């Protein structure tokens, strides 16, 4: 058996707080996607131990096909930058698609365009911020994406994937909050996450206007038995596994030193 780069146990916290399998996540999002082999899954069920880079992974990094997020706050910032790159590129392609150009309502176009602008701003801001504290080799590169599986002519597809990306972004920032050491980074992550939540609500409402879809039980979780009134806070490795499952990101992301507490 190949020695794994990183052991990723993708876990989705369901409404009852129990961990369920990835298959359930894909089912509830309605997305049928093929994994791109972003991660190599370990045979063992131990989670999140630091593991050495294999010779293959090191070669991929040197060739620019993979990137190690690093450690500490830098890893978290790079992680956020990866997610913002993903969203920005997705919306860039949405804005070139037939649904946006020929079918969308004025409001739908305004929302999707704003989301594109905001994610570009988040992305470029993070690049500047990370570059000011890390040398070029430690800043995530321009990632390679593949959205060829997406039908950008279909409204439901476009909005559903947007919903998944936004909901995932919220969960990602929420889960990264208590991993950050620098209070300034925490504050700026806080400034971004509520905007992603505004995005998520708007997209969900476009999919089912005027309903409770903007903050429904399918995305919110329970805390301490008080009811499903809370967004998820998902660990970076689990988010990255979910991203891997979409097949949209070709560049391999190595997260073996991302903080866990």
């Amino acid at each position, binding site marked *: 058996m190949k020695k794994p780069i990183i052991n990723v146990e993708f876990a989705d916290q369901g409404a009852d707080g129990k961990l369920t399998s990835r298959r359930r996540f894909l089912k509830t999002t309605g997305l049928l996607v093929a994994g791109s082999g972003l991660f190599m899954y370990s045979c063992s069920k131990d989670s999140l131990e630091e593991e050495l880079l294999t010779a293959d992974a090191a070669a991929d990094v040197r060739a620019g096909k993979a990137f190690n997020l690093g450690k500490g706050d830098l890893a978290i910032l790079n992680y956020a930058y990866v997610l913002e790159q993903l969203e920005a590129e997705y919306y860039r392609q949405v804005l070139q698609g037939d649904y946006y150009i020929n079918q969308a309502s004025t409001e739908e176009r305004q929302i999707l365009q704003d989301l594109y*602008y905001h994610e570009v701003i988040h992305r470029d801001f993070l690049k500047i911020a990370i570059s000011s504290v890390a040398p070029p080799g430690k800043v995530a590169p321009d990632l390679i994406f593949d959205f060829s599986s997406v039908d950008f002519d279909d409204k439901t597809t476009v909005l559903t994937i947007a919903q998944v990306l936004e909901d995932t972004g919220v969960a990602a920032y*929420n889960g990264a909050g208590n991993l950050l050491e620098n209070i300034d980074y925490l504050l700026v992550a806080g400034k971004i996450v509520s905007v992603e939540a505004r995005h998520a609500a708007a997209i969900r409402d476009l999919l089912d206007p005027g309903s409770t879809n903007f903050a429904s039980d399918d995305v919110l979780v329970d805390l301490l038995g008080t*009811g499903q009134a809370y967004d998820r806070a998902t660990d970076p490795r689990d988010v990255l596994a979910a991203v891997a499952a979409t097949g949209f990101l070709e560049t391999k992301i190595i997260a073996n030193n991302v903080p866990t507490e």
Partner: protein
Amino acid sequence: MNIIKFLDSLSDPELMKTPVSRRNGLKSLQQKGKELALVSIPFALAATSKKTAAATMAMPAAMFQASPTEVLQFALTLEYLERDFYQMGLDSGVIPTADRDVFGLIRDHERSHVDLLFAALGDAAFAAPEFDFSGGLGLDPFNNYAQFLALAQGFEDTGVRAYKGQAGALIDNNTLLEYALQIHSVEGRHASQVRRMRGEKGWITRNNTTLPDAFSAIYAGEQNTVQLGIDLAGRFPDFGGVDAVTEAFDEPLTMEEVNAIASLFLA
């Protein structure tokens, strides 16, 4: 009632003996699960992270920072305000049938948030204060739906900024910080929905507002374009310009600023 006096009174031990208090709070929580009583109380208030030194060094010495208990009490007051506002709105009949599901859901969420904060506070919890949703300005939100919607938007946008402003104060407590973030983003969802129901964008452009002038404080500072010392204005002419830059980040409010807004609605 003056908000400062109100908050000062919370540290009065006599107040802790009021009849509607922790006992009732816990009882309703126990209905939701026995484990709640076991895990809810002191865990939340103990520092669980090693970030203290870094955080202390990063904070300007002059900056007032609330304790975790004060943060939770502050949040509890706001959640009571929202919960009661939406409950009264639903009870009053001012909400059209088509919108009742949305506000029912929001009310459910605020009720949950109250329960969580109440449980986390333990002995430091308190009963809901009396609210006056006329705002001392002659508002009539339970008869005038436009005003109800406007106040709902104001409360949600304030809530987002209020939690955001306290994230730093929770940096030493991993659990509380995470809970606060998980509530904060839901308030963001609420805000987006209510804003769009009023014909606004789900996000805040500069410090623009269609709310009455008395509530301009809710949006003060939202025109900021500097993040981590980097001025983003002028960098995105082809991506929405300054409008988009200000929309892309929500700004915090201090506890004092939020209390000044909330105090308008305390009876």
